Structure formats: structure tokens, C-alpha cells
């Protein structure tokens, strides 16, 4: 599919904002949705909607089949088995579920969880809180030159007490890519498991959980062109099989008495209550959509645009670009204009139709390290093109001039 045709699959991208062409470069926050995803959700409601598992009638059987087909599609995206995929609301819930369930199993005094100061709050707080609760230690990896998490730095803090290593695959602030395959080896050599926050990687690059050797992988539907309110936790089968449920009621049970209960096997025991069936159907459709374009191709495009943008931004005097100084490996570019608060930058860009995020990006500890309370971030995805980069660069240059003038 050529790029123009691809863009036309996304109804929102055709809009204008403030009379300007919409330049949506905030896909790291959430991605726009292609027609096939919207249609899959609608088709589900109009043809098959019923409660899953519970019904004996044909409609309910179709709904159940749709839900399980979606699980298989999401599994295929990361080369997992369908029964290794738990549907959740998103990355944050996946990581909370995991920290609570697996944390309960393995954490206690004398043990530790290794993570990094560059993590999104969603991969920091669940571990911080479970470690606090269970008297385990939370250890931090020293960040490398460009802010990346290196296998060497991980190895330096891992010891025999380490039970969990939890790191992001791609940083949502710096855009750095972590070598999770080598960190998996370090984890396994220490008898620990590797938890990967895949919120920014699964939508953007080919992932093979088996080849990488990751034990758990969390990701969100809404960042991969799927609906809001749906996400997944991949867990290696043997591990899921040992984990207690954290969430009770509905179809996750086997037998219930007034005083106790037994639970279904994974992944069902983790999916209490009526699931987000339409959301799962949409996420499955998004997975197929991404695979049909090819994750290699998507990654190639992200990287090309991000490097173009970073180079262009660096050429604007008074603009500071964060993250890798050399070649970028992901679609995320974070920057600031000297002397102008990122919020003011984002407002100026908004007036030009350019959507960037400004703030701490849910990474307050990392921001403190960067010495910034706030940064602006552009992030690219498969539907972005060179025009988006040009529009961004022109808007940043104009914003710089504007604030220079009014600060006169």
C-alpha cells in the first residue's frame, strides 16, 4: 500500500485543525485508528454481540469465537501461543496484574527487583509498591551515556537475590531501544525473570518473545491502532500456570463455595468479569493490520522520519534534542526550545495544526535526570510522512521566532 492510500485508511488524519492540515505526531501517547479496526468493532456489535463463554446459543458461540480469534491474532503479533496472552485494559493494568500476582509468588525480604530510572511510571510504581509491601528491595540500573539501559549496567546490579528485572523495550522519552535479548540471558543466569514494558515497541517493530527470551511482555491496544481499554500481558506458559489470580468474579472460577474457590487455568483465571470483547476484537484486527503492512516496514518508516526530524530540529538554533546523539532506532524525538516552556511550545505548535505532547511523559525521575521539568515530544508512526516532519520543523522554527519576539 502506498502512503497516501494508507493515510486515507485513517479517517481522523484527513481532518483540519484551526484551518491547518492536521499533523498528528503524538502516536507514542495514542495511535489513530484505521477503518478496518473501526469496522471490526462495529461488525462485532452488529452481528455477534453476546456475553462470551456463558451462552449456549449460536450468537454467544460466535462472540466467544471472535474473542478467542482475537487472542490468537494478538499472540501471533509477538509469536506467543494464544493461551499465553491475557487480555487487560492496557500496559498499566498488565504490569499491575503481574507485579501483584508474580510479586506475591517470588518477592520477600532478601529479594530484589531491578529496574531503571528511565521507566514510565507504569513500570516503576507497581514494582515500587509491591516491593514496599513485601519488604523487597527495588534496585536501579545506572543509565548509559544517551540514557539507555545497557546489559552491562543491568548485570552490575543483578545478584542472587534478584527475582525480577523490569525494563522498557523502547523509552517513551528518549526513544532508546533496550537490548532485551541480552538482558534476558542475564536474568535467566541469575534465576530471575525478565519483564518487558512493550508499550512503545510492540506497535512499532517485529517482536518475537521466543527468540528474545522475554518472560513477560506488556502492551496496549490503543498505541497499536487498536481501541482504547484493551491491552495484553504475554506470559510464558509455565510462569502463568503458577501465578495466583488477583481479580475475582465472573468466568474466572472453577468452583465457588461460600468459604473458598478454585480457579480456571491461565489465561482465563486472570480475566475476571465480562471482558472487553469488542476491544479485543479491535485489537486483533489492529494486530492483523500491522502484520499485513509488516512490522519491519513500520519500523523502517518510524526511524526514517524520526532521524529526519531530529536532524532538522538540531539545525534550528536554540532547540535542544534529547536522547541518542547518533542514529535513532525508534520514532520518538524529544526536544525543548531554550527559554520556552514545553507547554508553550506545544500550544504554539497546536495553533499550526501540529499535535505534540508536552510534559513529564509519566517519567518524572528521568526528567529530573535530564534536568528538565517538561519537554516536548514528537513521535511518528506508519501513517506519518515527510510532510509531517516538514510541518513540525516549520512550526518549531516559527514558535521559536514568536517567543523570541514576544519576550522581546
Amino acid at each position, binding site marked *: 500500500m502506498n502512503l497516501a492510500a494508507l493515510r486515507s485508511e485513517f479517517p481522523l488524519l484527513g481532518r483540519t485543525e484551526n484551518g491547518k492540515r492536521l499533523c498528528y505526531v503524538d502516536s507514542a501517547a495514542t495511535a489513530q485508528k484505521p477503518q478496518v479496526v473501526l469496522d471490526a468493532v462495529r461488525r462485532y456489535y452488529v452481528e455477534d454481540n453476546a456475553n462470551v463463554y456463558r451462552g*449456549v446459543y*449460536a450468537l*454467544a*458461540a460466535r462472540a466467544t469465537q471472535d474473542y478467542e480469534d482475537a487472542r490468537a491474532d494478538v499472540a501471533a503479533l509477538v509469536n506467543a501461543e494464544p493461551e499465553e496472552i491475557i487480555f487487560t485494559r492496557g500496559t498499566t493494568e498488565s504490569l499491575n496484574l503481574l507485579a501483584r500476582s508474580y510479586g506475591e509468588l517470588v518477592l520477600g525480604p532478601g529479594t530484589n527487583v531491578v529496574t531503571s530510572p528511565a521507566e514510565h511510571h507504569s513500570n516503576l510504581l507497581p514494582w515500587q509498591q509491591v516491593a514496599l509491601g513485601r519488604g523487597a528491595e527495588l534496585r536501579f540500573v545506572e543509565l548509559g551515556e544517551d540514557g539507555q539501559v545497557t546489559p552491562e549496567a543491568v548485570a552490575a546490579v543483578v545478584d542472587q537475590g534478584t527475582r525480577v528485572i523490569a525494563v522498557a523495550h523502547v523509552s517513551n522519552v528518549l526513544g532508546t531501544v533496550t537490548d532485551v535479548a541480552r538482558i534476558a540471558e542475564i536474568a535467566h543466569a541469575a534465576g530471575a525473570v525478565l519483564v518487558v514494558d512493550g508499550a512503545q515497541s510492540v506497535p512499532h517493530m517485529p517482536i518475537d518473545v521466543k527468540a528474545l527470551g522475554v518472560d513477560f511482555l506488556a502492551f496496549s491496544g490503543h498505541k497499536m491502532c487498536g481501541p482504547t481499554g484493551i491491552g495484553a500481558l504475554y506470559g510464558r506458559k509455565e510462569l502463568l500456570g503458577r501465578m495466583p489470580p488477583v481479580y475475582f468474579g465472573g*468466568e474466572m*472460577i472453577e468452583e465457588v463455595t461460600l468459604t473458598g474457590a478454585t480457579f480456571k487455568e491461565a489465561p482465563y483465571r486472570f480475566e475476571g468479569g465480562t471482558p472487553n470483547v469488542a476491544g479485543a476484537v479491535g485489537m486483533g484486527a489492529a494486530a492483523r493490520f500491522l502484520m499485513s503492512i509488516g512490522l519491519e516496514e513500520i519500523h523502517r518508516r518510524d526511524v526514517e522520519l524520526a532521524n529526519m526530524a531530529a536532524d532538522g530540529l538540531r539545525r534550528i538554533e536554540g532547540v535542544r534534542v534529547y536522547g541518542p546523539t547518533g542514529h535513532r532506532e525508534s520514532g520518538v524525538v524529544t526536544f525543548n526550545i531554550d527559554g520556552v516552556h514545553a507547554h508553550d511550545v506545544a500550544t504554539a505548535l497546536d495553533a499550526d495544526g501540529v499535535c505534540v505532547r508536552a510534559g513529564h511523559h509519566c517519567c518524572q525521575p528521568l526528567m529530573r535526570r535530564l534536568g528538565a521539568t517538561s519537554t516536548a515530544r514528537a513521535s511518528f508512526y506508519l501513517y506519518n510522512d515527510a510532510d509531517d516532519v516538514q510541518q513540525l520543523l516549520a512550526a518549531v522554527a516559527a514558535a521559536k521566532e514568536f517567543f523570541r519576539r514576544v519576550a522581546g
Partner: protein
Amino acid sequence: MSLDDVYRQVVMDHYQNPRHHGHLAHPTLSVGLHNPSCGDELHLDVLVDEDGVVRDAAFEGQGCSISMAAASMFVDRVRGKKIAEARRIAETFKDLLRRREADRSVLGDLEALEGVSQFPARVKCATLIMNAFEQAIDRIQAEGGDPK
């Protein structure tokens, strides 16, 4: 999709007069399974000898006509068979209900349940006994060393 295709006379007969209903005195292994979506319960006893032959089997439970008839038919069918053969019967039956190609000749009375494939939500009723059996055999083979 027709009810008559599912609730054949032989099915209702197995339901109302289950064969091998009850317990074995000295089973090699017992398994209890739930069909959580309906609350049905199934208990299976199997006796496997050193040559890997299912010497005897018996079941008990509460459930719909399809699950109980399937249990009666299946237990009846695999008694005296080698484990490998019994497994093949289970697999063949599952294939049949999922509308895949299947060698009906090994199925005996079970073939009468083919109509269940028209009611996908009921397939798990018909295959509950096979799941119990496969679990039992897996555990016997894992624990006792492979009795073939």
C-alpha cells in the same frame, strides 16, 4: 441446524442408561473435571496395565445429555484398547466435532454425536470426557514412567 441430528436415539439411550457408570475399586488414577461454564462435573476412574492397555474405566457426574452420553460412549469405546489407540479415538472425535477430516471408523457409537458440530457452544460438553481421559493418561505416563 436440527435438533434431531444431535439428540439421536442412541445418544438419549446412553444418557438414560449410561454404561460403566460409577467407580472402579482400584483405579490407576482418578480425575475430576468441571465444565465451569455450566457447573457440570465429571469424575473418571481409569485402570491401565503394564502393557499400556486401558483395562477398565468408569465415570460419574452430573451434566447435560450430551456430556453424559459422550462419557458413556467414550468409556465404552476405549475399554480394552491400547492407550495410543484410545488417544486416537479422542483426537478423531474432536476433529469430527470441529468439522475436520476424521476417520469415523474408529468411533463406534460416538459417531452419533456428529450433529453437535452444528452447535459450537456444545462441543465442550461432548469433549469433556476426552479431556478428562487425556489428563488422566498424561499423568499416568508422567508419573509412572511410560506404560507404553
